[in-house]
Each structure stands twice: as C-alpha cells, then as structure tokens.
C-alpha cells in the first residue's frame, strides 16, 4: 500500500497565505487553523477568494507566499497527487469515459490499494448507489452524480475532504436532503471537511465552524450561532442573515452600555457586545428580535424603542410575517413576527419598534455609504 488509509482527519493550517493572479490579489493574508475531524465552512460571495483557498489546499494553485500544513507536515511545494486531500468538484468532474464504479476506484488504483473494486463498491453502498455501479456518469441525475463524486473522494479516506459548492447545482429539496446526508456521512467517517459555499443557510446548517470571507480576507470566524448572534462587521451582519443597522455618534456611555442618538431616538448596545467604543458607530439588530407595537409602549432602560413609523410593506412567508417600516430620520427597518394568526397591523399603520438592548450588537466598521 503506497499511502496508508488514515483513521481520522488531520489538522489543516494555513500560515500567511497570499495569492496573486496577474492583475489582482485573490487572497491577501490568510491564517487559518482547522482542527482534525471538524466540519469547516468557508462562506462568502463569489470572488471573495474562497474557491482559490480551496484550490491552494488541493494543490491546484501554488500560493505566492505563505505555508500550508496538513497534519503538521509542510505540503506547500507538493503536487496535488502527492497530497492526502480529495476534492468534490463543483461540476463533479466525473470521468465520462468510465463507469461509476471505475470512477470511484480511480484513486485506489492510482495508489495501488488492494482490492480497489471491493472498496469502491463499499463506498457506493455508503452513498446508496451500489445498484448503479455499471452505469456511465452521464446516465445519472444531478443528485446521483453528486453522490458518486462524494464516494470517489471519500473512498480514499483523505486526511482532508474539500467540497467546492458541491450542492450548488441541485434544486432546493434535493439540496436539503443532501445536506443532511453529507453531515451524517461526515459524522460517520470522522474526516475533516472543508466546505466552500456562498449559501449562508447551508454553511450555518452543516458546519461546526464558519469563516466568513470577503475580498480575500476572513472577516469573522466562529460557531454559526455566535456569528449570527454577534456579527463584528457590516459585511458579516448583512451577508449572514438580515440586519437592521443604525448609525450615530455615541452620546452616552455608562459602565455597561453605549448609546447613540439617531434623529431623536436613543439606541443602546451593551459594551461587551460592541466592537468600537467611541465616535460614530453602527448598532444592529436582527429583524426577528424586534417587535412591533401599534401604540407607544412603556419601556425600561433594558429596551430600545424607535418610532413611530409607517408600515410600507407586509410580506407573508408562511412561518412569519415580514414588515417593512419607514421611520423618519432613521430609514427602513425590517421586523419579522411569528405568524401566530393574531397580527392586526395593516399597511399604512403607524407603529413603534422595540427590542432588548441585550440583542443589539455594535459593529467595528460603518456601511460604505456612511462617512466617518
């Protein structure tokens, strides 16, 4: 056996990685550590450098600067076929001139592993496609091709499995099914998964850790819940879910909280939930944390209250009603309310918006449209 099967995944470490292409810099300076056995998602819009990062790890691109370690071993200068890494490509990249079984056995044959066909069949059983082993890839549906691509990578028991938007080409229902299946397989085989996606729901749903990438840098990294609850930058607040942002100069600073004044409305954030403690700051709140009131409610210092404003739009999405409220001097605020069947708010109504100060978050930067 040329390369031993690993029982468990390996750590991946990127140290000071930089990648320049003629004319632009895809990755500025990336440091990243992914612990063994973790499901790690790189999330970002197209062109943010996430796919380049994945190709660097696979060895399909060489970094301009920096080091890459897999399981503590420096692999920066090794070729793709020498790395204990396998990729599930966005286009699946199944070999059209080979049967499904031969596709899956390809990696085993290259490494001269014993009994490649038996192991390939087992891998196909894992993804429930053993009955289609003799077909050509073109004869399979998109979801089946995706699973063959997964089996073809998994069968090699790589230290690290790279997934390049593997669910991108599937329709919504199949996508959800595959997400569950993929997560289950990862738990079963215990490999390290590095998953690249632009779908924030997919990233949050599947990954243990999510890194949000923007313009070749990691903006923020953490558990999905933490990222959602406390985004640090405007980009993360807007890319990961929806956010209402309020911008103003700090007018009050107590031991535990900061307050800004926006057109006569006082908006507060706990100090330990704010990234910036002076000058002009942006405070945000998630739409589902906010409440609507048809008359001015009495609130304590634990709550923020803004308004009144006019209801511009109501969108019914089934689970929730989404209200768009225009508040003079502040702008448009989005509020989600659970559809409990008792909402009496109508278009054109004057409403107030409240939320707990503890649900506010203060950002480190300001939206591009606002000057310091």
């Amino acid at each position, binding site marked *: 056996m040329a*390369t031993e099967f690993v029982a468990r995944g390996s750590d991946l470490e990127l140290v000071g990685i930089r990648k320049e292409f003629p004319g632009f810099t895809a990755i500025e300076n990336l440091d990243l550590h992914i612990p063994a056995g973790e499901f790690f998602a790189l999330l970002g819009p197209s062109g943010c450098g996430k796919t380049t990062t994945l190709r660097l790890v696979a060895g*399909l691109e060489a970094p301009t600067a920096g080091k890459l370690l897999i399981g503590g071993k420096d692999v920066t200068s090794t070729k*793709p076929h020498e790395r204990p890494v396998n*990729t599930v490509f*966005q286009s699946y990249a199944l*070999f*059209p001139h080979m049967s499904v079984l031969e596709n899956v056995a390809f990696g085993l044959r290259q490494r001269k592993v014993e009994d490649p066909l038996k192991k390939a069949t087992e891998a196909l059983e894992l993804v429930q496609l053993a009955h289609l082993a*003799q077909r050509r890839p073109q*004869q399979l549906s998109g979801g089946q091709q995706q699973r063959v691509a997964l089996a073809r990578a998994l069968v*090699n028991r790589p230290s690290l499995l790279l997934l390049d938007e593997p669910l991108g080409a599937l329709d919504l229902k199949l996508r959800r099914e595959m997400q569950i299946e993929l997560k289950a397989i990862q738990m079963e085989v215990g490999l390290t998964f590095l998953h690249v996606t632009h779908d924030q729901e997919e990233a949050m749903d599947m990954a243990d850790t999510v890194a949000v990438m923007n313009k070749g840098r990691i903006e923020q990294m953490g558990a999905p819940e933490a990222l959602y609850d406390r985004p640090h930058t405007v980009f993360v607040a807007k890319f990961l879910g929806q956010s209402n942002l309020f911008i103003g100069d700090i007018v009050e600073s107590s031991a535990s909280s900061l307050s800004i004044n926006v057109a006569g409305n006082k908006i507060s954030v706990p100090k330990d939930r704010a990234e910036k403690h002076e000058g002009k700051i942006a405070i945000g709140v998630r739409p589902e944390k906010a409440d609507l009131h048809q008359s001015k409610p009495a609130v304590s210092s634990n709550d923020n209250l803004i308004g009144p404003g006019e209801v511009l739009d109501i969108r019914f999405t089934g689970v929730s009603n989404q209200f768009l409220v225009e508040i003079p001097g502040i702008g448009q605020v989005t509020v989600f309310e659970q559809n409990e069947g008792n909402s009496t708010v109508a278009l054109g109504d004057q409403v107030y918006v409240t939320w707990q100060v503890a649900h506010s978050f203060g950002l480190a930067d300001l939206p591009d449209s606002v000057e310091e």
Partner: protein
Amino acid sequence: MRFSLGRAALPIYAVLAFVYLLIPIAYTFVFSFNDTFKSNIVWRGFSFKNWLGVCNEQGVCEAFGNSILIGVVSTIIATALGTAIAIALVRYDFKFRSSVSLLLFLPMATPEIVLGAGLASQFFNMGAEKGLVTVIIAHVMFCLSFVVVTVKARVSSLDPALEEAGSDLYATPSKVFWKITFPLLMPGILAAALLSFALSFDDFIITNFNAGPLSTFPKFVYTAASKGIPAAANVVGSAVFLVAILIVVAVQVSSTIKERRLKAGK
C-alpha cells in the same frame, strides 16, 4: 393533388446536386470494370480483369504503396505533434501564444503551389536529395495545421476540472494524460488522423515539387493521364473510396448500437 413547383423544387434540386457530386465517382467505379483494350474511354463490356490484375500495370502498385507509406508515416508524426501543440495552446499560457495560433493557420491559407515551390527551393539550398524523406517532411508540414485546428476544438470542450480531478485522485501527470486527457481527446485525434491521411494521400502539387524521382499514386495518375488513364487507376481509386465508405458505415453502426445500449440501460 395539383403539381406545385415550390414543393417539387427542393427534391429536384437535391437529386441534381447528388448527381453532380456522384457522377465522377460513379464513372470511376463503373469503368474500373471495363473490359479495356489499350485505352479506358469507351465501354467495351464488363470484366473483373482490371481488379484481379491491378498490379500488372507497371508502376501502379509501387506508387500506391509509396502513397500509403507516406500517408501513414506523415499522419502519425503530424497527429502526435499537432495534438501536443493543440493541448499546449489551450491549456498553457505562454508568451506569443496568440501569434503561434495565427501562424499555424498560415499553411492552410497559403496556395499549395507556393508552399511546394518554397519548400523545394529550401531542400535544393540545403542540398537535400529529394525522395521519401522530403515528401514526408512536406506532408507533415501541411497536415500539422489541420491536426492542430481539429484537436484544439476538442481540447477546448474538455472541462479542465476532469484533469484536476485526476491529479487530485493521486494520478501522476503522465497517468492523468494517458488515463483521462488522451481517451477523452480520442475522437478528435482520430478525426485529425483521418483528415491528415486523406490530405496526404491525394496531395499532388506539393508532392510533385518535392518527390524527385519518387512515384506516388496521384503523380502516377497525372503522368498516365497524358496517354489515357489506365484502368488500374480506376481500380485503386474505387478501392480507396469503398474502404472509406466502409469505415464511415462501421463507425455509424457501432455508435448507434452504443447509443441503443445506453438507452436500454436507463
């Protein structure tokens, strides 16, 4: 039903076009069975004697053999070189790539008579003796462009992710080429090889300039034509035509069978 000119025009045109295309071929084929005496211009009756004694005519089979040899050797060389060039042009970025692409078109655009004469004077300058080698060099030169163009189209349509997947799955660069790139390019490479063999086999102009005393089939027919084409030329021409048709039919049939099998498997 009333006769309508509009409706009849297309079939009539199609039939005429086919007649126009097929008359020379049919003539050649039919007259290969003529019971010839001295010349092969008047029909004198049906006979197999030309087919059975094709090599009796002096020089026919030697010329034919030379043409086959030149065709096979220059096809192999041109296809191998052309495939490598096509892959380089599509897959790798290098200095003067677009100029190389453009230059490769030149031999196709240049009149053969100019290529032939130019090459002949080069061989003369170098003091090279004209013969088999010079003809093969000349044929490789003009076949190369056609191979590059044909294979390039195939390489462009090949998803680079397939080769990346190969190296990702532990295949060394040479394994990636032989297990993935080459089999997937095969239809294009085959088409290019057939094309260059056909071009080489019936080339007269460039060959005539560079062959010296060496005889090839087109040269033989040209020389013979001045005193009436021997029936053996009709036989060889018909045989080549039949082989070509057989190959096309075989390929069609086998791909139809494959397709049926694929559909049946679904």
